[in-house]
């Protein structure tokens, strides 16, 4: 009952934004709320079900974004003929190197030179790989650097990118998890922090793949374009029947289409998560979370289950990341900021209620809503507070300029206060035995 009220309040808030600011804004808030809710669901799978602390959400979301670009953009033929072969050779060399290193690591167990051999294999492999990559990426980046200078993508429908983004993120999670799970919780946290920094550095610097900071713009959309809508008869008639201006209505219509697509994904992920949570698997996960030692004594493979849940959660984050890039219509590597992507999602999960999927969704909606709306509120607050000061005062100007940084502080405070006074969040986990 109380939960329903929470959801009604947040829906009412979004409707209020629609009434008083604009419906366009309200719908874009709604769309990002849904994406945030999916990311929060992914993190909740890791943290709420298994107690794993992932500080690399940004990286997994960025991999999803990369997938959206790689799947949907049309391939650049000249770039492929200039350096496609070299890149392919580099990738083959990379795979061979990893296989050789793993093989020698496995086969030489117990011998004295194992570490030396593995390092040697990796170093030689690295040089072979670079000898393929370097000329190829130079050649690719020289092809029309102003407009392309990268390989492009596969030219497939962008909706296909959502599951692919999940797979990419899951693969990265598998590598990190394989190494750090089973050690202290701190190590997983630090390793995920590291991998996310590296993934974003790659997106920013591997121009042959992502155009780097030049951004890839104009990703194909899964929904109609405003301009086409405005020119089609049925749409003009619909707008006339609703007595709205077709131009404004077209952008609202597009956002509604997105909201529908995202809503379907949200419901699907929620359904699967709830099913999993209520299944024997979900009970086992919670048992492991609450007492690892006794679950291990019951014959559960704790490390394997942790790896499984870590990969699953990261996949959900990757899907949400691909959706976000689809909505933006562009891949902008510099937009991946840890505070925005990693830590904000954590605030959502903690505030919403860790271990409860509905809580994660509510957290996603509430926190994203306030994150967006707190900026105008903060500036308004600062203006009011400083209204007594001299209008030319430097301090006043500084305070008003700094209002945006209040958001960080507020989010930190919300996190700390929730953790302290209401650690179970807005919608607590059902039958939690804490």
């Amino acid at each position, binding site marked *: 009952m109380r939960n329903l009220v929470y959801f009604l309040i947040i829906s009412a808030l979004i409707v209020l934004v629609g009434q008083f600011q604009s419906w366009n804004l309200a719908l874009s808030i709604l769309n990002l709320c849904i994406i945030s809710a999916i990311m929060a669901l992914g993190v909740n799978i890791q943290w709420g079900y298994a*107690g794993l*602390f992932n*500080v690399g959400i940004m990286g997994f979301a960025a991999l999803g974004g990369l997938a959206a670009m790689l799947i949907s953009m049309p391939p650049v033929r000249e770039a492929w003929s200039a350096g496609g072969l070299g890149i392919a050779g580099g990738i083959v060399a990379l795979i061979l190197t990893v296989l050789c290193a793993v093989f020698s690591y496995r086969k030489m167990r117990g011998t004295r030179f194992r*570490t030396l051999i593995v390092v040697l294999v990796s170093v030689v492999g*690295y040089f072979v790989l670079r000898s393929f990559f*370097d000329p190829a990426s130079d050649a690719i980046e020289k092809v029309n650097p102003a407009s392309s200078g990268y390989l492009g993508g596969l030219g497939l429908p962008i909706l296909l990118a959502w599951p692919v983004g999940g797979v990419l993120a899951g693969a990265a999670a598998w590598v990190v998890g394989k*190494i*750090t799970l089973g*050690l*202290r*919780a*701190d*190590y997983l*946290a*630090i*390793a995920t*922090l*590291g*991998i996310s*920094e*590296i993934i974003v*550095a*790659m997106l*920013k*610097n591997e121009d042959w793949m992502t155009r780097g900071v030049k951004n890839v713009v104009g990703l194909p959309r899964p929904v109609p374009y405003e301009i086409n809508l405005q020119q089609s008869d049925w749409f003009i008639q619909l707008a006339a029947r609703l007595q709205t201006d077709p131009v404004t209505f077209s952008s609202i219509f597009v956002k509604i289409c997105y909201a529908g697509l995202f809503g379907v994904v949200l419901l699907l992920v929620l359904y699967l998560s709830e099913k999993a949570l209520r299944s024997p698997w979900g009970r086992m996960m919670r048992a492991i979370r609450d007492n690892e030692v006794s679950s291990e004594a019951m014959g559960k493979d704790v490390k394997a289950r942790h790896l499984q849940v870590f990969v699953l959660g990261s996949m959900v984050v990757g899907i949400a990341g691909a959706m976000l890039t689809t909505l933006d219509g562009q891949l902008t590597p510099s937009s991946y900021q*840890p*505070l925005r992507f990693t*830590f904000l999602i*954590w605030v959502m999960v*903690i505030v919403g209620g860790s271990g409860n999927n509905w809580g994660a969704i509510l957290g996603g909606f509430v926190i994203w809503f306030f994150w967006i709306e707190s900026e105008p509120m903060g500036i308004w607050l600062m203006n009011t507070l400083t209204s007594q000061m001299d209008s030319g005062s430097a301090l006043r100007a500084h305070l008003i*300029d*700094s209002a945006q*940084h*209040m*958001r*960080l*502080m*507020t*989010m*930190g*405070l919300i*996190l*700390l206060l929730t*953790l*302290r006074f209401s*650690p179970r969040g807005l919608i607590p986990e059902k039958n939690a035995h804490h």
Partner: protein
Amino acid sequence: MELLNALALLSNYVLVPALAYGSQLALGALGVTLVFGILRFSNFAHGDTMAFGTMVTILFTWWFQSMGIHLGPLPTALLAMPFGILFCAAYVLATDRLVYRFYRSKRSDPVIYLIASVGVMFVTNGIVRFIIGPDDQNFADGERFIIKAGEFKKLTGLSEGVSIKLSQGITVITMFIVVALLFWFLNKTRSGKSMRAYSDNEDLALLSGINPDRVVAITWILAAALATIAGTLYGLDKSFKPFTYFQLLLPIFAAAIVGGLGNPLGAIAGGFVIAFSEIMITYAYKRVIAYLVPGDWVPDGLIQLLSTDYKFAVSFVILLLVLLVRPNGIFKGTGV
């Protein structure tokens, strides 16, 4: 001669910067490792604590400069640093009182501390950006160089110069002084011994009458001092930007883990391991090779193993390797 030139080149671009950077990382990692040894969690707020201490130092530096107080050839920031430490310690103790103490009294899981430290990180980051802004701040004054490349060339007759910035010299010297003081404190004083005892075996320490609140408070003060010193030295050497300090978290954690979390000696070693690997792997060796081999053997490329954009990848890979091979770090990571 050619060999000496190559050595000079390497010293200028690898040895000297890595020594300075390594000292900064070592000081940062010492703070992380101390907090870990006593409070048993990895403090994600450490990077931003560094930024906070540095920010106070910068504000005092500006104040001193405006009053005309200078240290002659040395940067004014050294004079302001004690005030930075003071404010930073007060701030960190306040966060302990308001945030961590509650979880200590409940004996919460380490991962809860971890999340709480993320919250503290957020708030500290907000405060720093609020007060000093998110942009680059330059606060170094005094002399710029101990020895300039030109002077070195004239002195030795080599065609490659070695320049040592004053900030690099100060960094290394300060690191030695601070580490000496820290080890004296941990090994010789009563408080230091009680800290080590608490870290080795908390229950036994409590039984023998060690006051846990006192140990924790001392730890936080030490961590704040180390963070401020590391942050100020880094800021003098490069420049101060709040986001850079957040990004320093990764190499600092890597240094602490490589050396073994909770082990101060290991943290210092780890700091230098990370710094030297990072700089050696991202340095372009073309000109060094040009001195060592005959002219027509010189390769076309830069001979750079990894572009500097990926310097974080170096600390990350070292971190993963250590976790794979020796999960407890090079030195055994228990106790302070």
